[in-house]
């Protein structure tokens, strides 16, 4: 694997499958009484969050702590960033404190890329969501969740599986990362959105596109609903929230058209009643809560693989056997 995780495009199929395999091993930790490994003892992980994101930050924090890393949380609000300190100076400060990995969430597309390539820091950079660009660990946890439900019995990829990603694709970093990663893993992705929320040039992406949710659902093995952010609702991208819900929301009637094995996903936070109704979100098909659990395991795998420098092969078990002291 590369030194940084900036884009889902950084991951080859081998890389991605390594992360998913490692995550599968680490996930079994969650079922143990002591949920901690010494793998990253003495290493420092900084969560550098320039945007509010409680769930992603907590997920990374839990992941780092379960690997025994020291965790520093740096939130832009209430910090020197709000006093006008630049991304560069913040990065230099964290570097001086000895960060081994910087997990960065930033409102500007490409900010993690700048951190990694501008010479400001030597640490590994993990993109935890940048602007409307990418959110690769979300895609990895989505792929992990898909693999557990739909993957081949041999633990392989998602070859031939059909995944519909529905909603505000234009502004969605989750959609971009998933489109890249799921295609790498062999899945067939269909992006579903009103034309105003479809990115320019989407025709050259490795995906199908559709404006018609009802036509896509019966063929899907999984449907991933994207949040419609409040500020987009009045942005003229669609006439009214009600019309959006009618055409692109997932309700009980639409869910009934899915195949029996199909699952419903959402990266959260949900706007219940907008893109997804409560009965769908809480239905047995919904794996939304499981996605959160899987998120910790996947982020543990990413931090472990980036920081340990280990070229983890399948025959070198990461976890001690159940009887060994953890």
């Amino acid at each position: 694997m590369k030194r940084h995780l900036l884009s889902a495009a950084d991951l080859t199929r081998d890389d991605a499958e390594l992360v998913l395999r490692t995550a599968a091993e680490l996930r079994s930790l969650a079922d143990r009484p002591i949920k901690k490994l010494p793998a990253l003892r003495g290493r420092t992980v900084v969560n550098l969050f320039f945007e509010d994101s409680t769930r992603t930050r907590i997920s990374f924090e839990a992941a780092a702590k379960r690997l025994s890393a020291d965790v520093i949380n740096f939130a832009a609000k209430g910090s020197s960033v709000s006093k006008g300190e630049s991304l560069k100076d913040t990065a230099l400060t964290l570097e001086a404190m000895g960060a081994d990995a910087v997990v960065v969430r930033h409102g500007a597309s490409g900010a993690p890329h700048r951190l990694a390539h501008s010479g400001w820091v030597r640490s590994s950079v993990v993109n935890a969501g940048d602007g409307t660009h990418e959110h690769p660990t979300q895609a990895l946890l989505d792929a992990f969740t898909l693999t557990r439900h739909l993957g081949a019995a041999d633990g392989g990829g998602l070859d031939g599986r059909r995944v519909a990603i529905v909603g505000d694709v234009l502004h969605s970093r989750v959609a971009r990362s998933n489109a890249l990663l799921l295609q790498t893993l062999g899945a067939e992705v269909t992006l579903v959105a009103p034309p105003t929320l479809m990115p320019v040039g989407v025709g050259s992406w490795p995906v199908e596109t559709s404006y018609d949710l009802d036509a896509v659902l019966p063929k899907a093995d999984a449907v991933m609903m994207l949040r419609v952010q409040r500020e987009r609702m009045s942005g003229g991208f669609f006439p009214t929230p009600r019309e959006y819900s009618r055409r692109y929301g997932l309700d009980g009637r639409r869910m009934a058209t899915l195949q029996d094995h199909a699952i419903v996903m959402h990266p959260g936070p949900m706007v219940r009643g907008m893109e997804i109704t409560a009965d769908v979100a809480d239905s047995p098909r919904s794996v939304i809560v499981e996605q959160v659990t899987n998120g910790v395991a996947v982020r543990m795998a990413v931090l472990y693989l980036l920081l340990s420098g280990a070229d983890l092969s399948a025959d070198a078990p990461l976890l001690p056997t159940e009887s060994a002291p953890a």
Partner: protein
Amino acid sequence: MTTYLLRNASILGGETTDLLLADGVVAAVGPDLAAGPGADGATVVDATGLLALPGLVDLHTHLREPGREDAETVDTGTRAAAMGGFTAVHAMANTEPVADTAGVVEQVWRLGREAGHCDVFPVGAVTVGLAGERLAELGAMADSAARVRVFSDDGRCVSDAVLMRRALEYVKAFDGVVAQHAQEPRLTEGAQMNEGELSGRLGLTGWPAVAEEAIIARDCLLAAHVGSRLHVCHVSTAGSVQIVREAKARAAREGGWEVTAEVCPHHLLLTDELAATYDPIYKVNPPLRTAADVEALRAGLADGTIDVVATDHAPHPHEDKDCEWAAAAFGMLGLETALSIVQETMVDTGLLDWAGVAERMSAAPARIGRLAEHGQPLTVGAPANVVLYDPAVRRVVDPATSASLSRNTPYRGMELPGRVVATFLRGTPTVLDGALV
């Protein structure tokens, strides 16, 4: 005043000849002038292997003074201009305070005279404070010592159609021209780079070509309607070239109105692919476009649809580029590399000869700016504004050696052809042996 004898220069790439520069004018042109009248005591400059071109004229320079002296001053900016072979620059109005009164334009004009590296012709703002709400005192700026003829809200578009109409009408009284920054504001809210496949992939808000083309089309129609002179700044798309081409054909048929256009060196060479680095050294407005646009711009410049190469030299302090893309300032340096880029993209490709370069970079901009002392052919009696250029050498661009106060060149580390060896402003060297005098 020292007399200069330029030996064995090739005017516009033609037969080698000598030029005698005396009393601020070209005193003689011909072979072996050393023995001729007036050459006695002249300082000899060996121009063997060098091109002699009329001093370059830039229609679009940001000198940043007053207000942003941390980025550039009239002094440092005109040093960079001289190093690039320019003898005149038009200083854009988006300073702090804005150049929207006779007082500010006269200040900039005086600073240029005091610096003495090249002539500075201030551009006046079209609207008060560039706010796009009401006309600035265009007549007062025209009548001032700075003698303003070019008016522009550059950096902002005069998007209000009525205001643009009035501006085009009003400047007719003093033979002015409105230089439009064509950017429909609503279509480009938050825009960061060319809108296309790449902007979608990078998650950077797109700046669609139609936002430029729609304004150019409207302004051409307005200029035709009121019978005035329109100049289009930094044309960047293939569609814009085609619109200007059709408008020029109509203007030639009808007479009574005129549209001219400029292209920037960076739009002739660089493409939007560079945004994939997320390095804002490549962030500029209008943005770098596609390879197909670059090709159309070169063709438009070659066939005369685009009249002028203008630098849009836009200095920014280091911290305004050493940050994330969205937070960075738009713009790049251009004065010291413009001629080399034109050689690379237009001359070495066979699209334009050196006479064509002199037309696009000297004669045409001087004509549009109504500058009597610039842009004239190097014949006897013409003002001695001359640049000696060595097209045979290649050099690697090193920002540290720039005469500008700023370092934001996108050509850092790039090997480019050609080098300005000497620049003469009214017979006085501003650059000799490739160094500032």
